[in-house]
């Protein structure tokens, strides 16, 4: 089952396309990180997935074929939006009651236990809580609905490092206990490395990289060798990005199985998720998508196999 499946998705605001030709399938059971530079279309993609925005082109389905925004989709998706909006004048208890009234499922026991654990007083007005506490309340409301998919848009922007850790711990507990799938967008690459097992990299409105983190890491290497040999080496290989030093050059290459032979004088190292992400962010033209190697402007229509 694909938790989000988009086919040739486009979203136009005024004259410019925030998303364009975006084809994507995120399988269920992952913590998927959605990364990309500002304005790449992360929030737009998430808004479409949760039904807040309607696509201008293409189509999107969630939770294995439910139209985004349909009652069945809303029922199974919990969304924590950017800046975690809560009704500032309502108390935490009222926000709980509100969410209980607006949903089919609401786990009071879970919500209360988590608020106690966090030491957030239920009678306090949401607007009087710290930014971190507001984020925690929003996450508690989302998780108490026991969703199949949890969508988080830049959830950690307002959090200090400790709160970030607690926040992700709560998300990972829900993943372990409930089997909830998670899609989160974030700027904090280091944070994602610990939790994400699926990566979607958006660049100027389309998908540049998509895949399981393990597979992506296994199919990329950093080759270090003499700078003078870098160009000759690059011509033979599927190079994503070249970083040149005084004498040494570091090439991030995508390897196609065992057929690749290491050029003489070069050494191969495994790559970290952060390195890989940064390399692709620096080279928006390079693409790594499921299936055979493709380039960004030659997207095959099929995304699932």
């Amino acid at each position, binding site marked *: 089952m694909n938790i989000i499946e988009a086919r040739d998705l486009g979203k136009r605001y005024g004259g410019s396309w925030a998303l364009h030709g975006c084809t994507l399938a995120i399988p269920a059971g992952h913590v998927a990180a959605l990364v990309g530079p500002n304005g790449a279309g992360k929030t737009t993609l998430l808004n479409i997935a949760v039904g*807040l925005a309607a696509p201008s082109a293409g189509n999107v389905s969630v939770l294995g074929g439910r139209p985004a925004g349909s009652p069945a989709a809303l029922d199974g998706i919990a969304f924590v939006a950017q800046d975690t909006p809560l009704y500032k004048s309502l108390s935490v208890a009222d926000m709980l009651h509100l969410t209980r009234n607006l949903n089919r499922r609401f786990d009071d026991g879970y919500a209360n236990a988590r608020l106690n654990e966090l030491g957030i007083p239920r009678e306090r007005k949401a607007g009087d809580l710290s930014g971190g506490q507001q984020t925690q309340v929003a996450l508690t409301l989302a998780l108490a609905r026991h969703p199949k998919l949890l969508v988080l848009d830049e959830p950690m922007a307002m959090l200090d490092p400790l709160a970030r850790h607690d926040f992700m711990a709560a998300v990972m507990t829900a993943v372990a206990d409930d089997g909830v799938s998670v899609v989160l967008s974030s700027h904090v690459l280091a944070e994602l490395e610990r939790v994400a097992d699926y990566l979607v990299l958006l660049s100027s409105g389309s998908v540049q990289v998509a895949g399981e983190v393990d597979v992506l890491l296994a*199919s990329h290497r950093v080759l270090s060798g003499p700078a003078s040999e870098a160009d000759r080496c690059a011509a033979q290989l599927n190079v994503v990005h070249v970083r040149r030093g005084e004498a040494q050059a570091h090439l991030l290459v995508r390897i196609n199985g065992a057929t690749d032979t290491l050029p003489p004088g070069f050494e191969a190292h495994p790559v970290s998720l952060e390195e890989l992400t940064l390399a692709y962010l620096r080279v928006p033209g390079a693409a790594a998508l499921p299936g055979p190697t493709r380039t960004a402007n030659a997207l095959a229509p099929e995304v699932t*196999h």
Partner: protein
Amino acid sequence: MTSQTLPASPNVNASLRPLPWRRMGWVTWRQHRLALSGVVTVFGAAAVYLLITGLPMHNAYANVTACRPARSGPCQQVAENFVATYQHLVLVSAGLIQAIPVLIGAFVGAPLLAREFEAGTFRYAWTQGFGRTRWTIAKLALLAIAITIAAAGFGALFSWYVQPIIGAGGGNSGPLSPTVFDLRGVALPAWTLAAFAIGALAGILIRRVTPAMFATLAVWVALAVLTGTYLRPHYEAPLVTHTADSPAGALVINQGLLRDGKPATLDMINQTLRAVDLQALTPTLFHPTGPSTLPSSEDPVQYLIQHGYTQITTYQPASRLWPFQWIEGSWLLALSLLLLATTVWRVRRRAT
């Protein structure tokens, strides 16, 4: 690097039964109880004011109705004194109360959706299982019904309040006059509902609370003024009289002079009046251009009538109050429903 598509799971949730509407009762009350208590407070305070000033007026009016024989000179005098004493009070009260519907539109209708956008909370509310279309319908319906009922109750009280001054034939405050017509009967709840609907639509179109409130104010006032000036006098074909006075309580639409069956122009009138050194500013307002040669016992209109002119007054009789109330109530209700439906359609169509 592969993503599997498992065979689509049987759509167990496809025929998901919607959440019951009653869930929105608590939600609407909790989120709008401040606005609703504001409505009750404003109407309540105005009602207390009407009772405090209205009871002495009703006591005084008892003397007018008790006077016998009713058409005698002394009784006419009593009625005139009553009108002179209380007419001003009724006009001031009516003027203050005119503001209530539009205030409800601006303070209850406009923020309803605009605040969700301003605070970003629509991204919370519209991604819950209830669904944003039904969420909007429930909130609009509950609030619209609440304020319409409150306004209808208050409209009945105001009808009681103005009854003496209308009964005593109070000068220009006939039942159709713009100062009191829309504050009673079905007109007041209809105008209040329209203000709320204008506010709600302004809220989703503008998406900011303060500008939406001002837009509501401007649109509602424009609609009320245009209705009172151009629309209401023509709900039915006006009646015509050729006497100087229209029947008691009538709404005069136009007064003028005819010559040879055609409306007399100012030029024609002035040509006739030149002989007596008078100038007509309007067909009913005259200005001497020199030492007037018109005998002081004669008024210029009489002079014109003697010289071949006929007076014409078009008016709506007071007896048309209720037909007019229903006409105005009906089209305002239709307009409000259209605006509310447009609001729901806008919510359904796009959120970001």
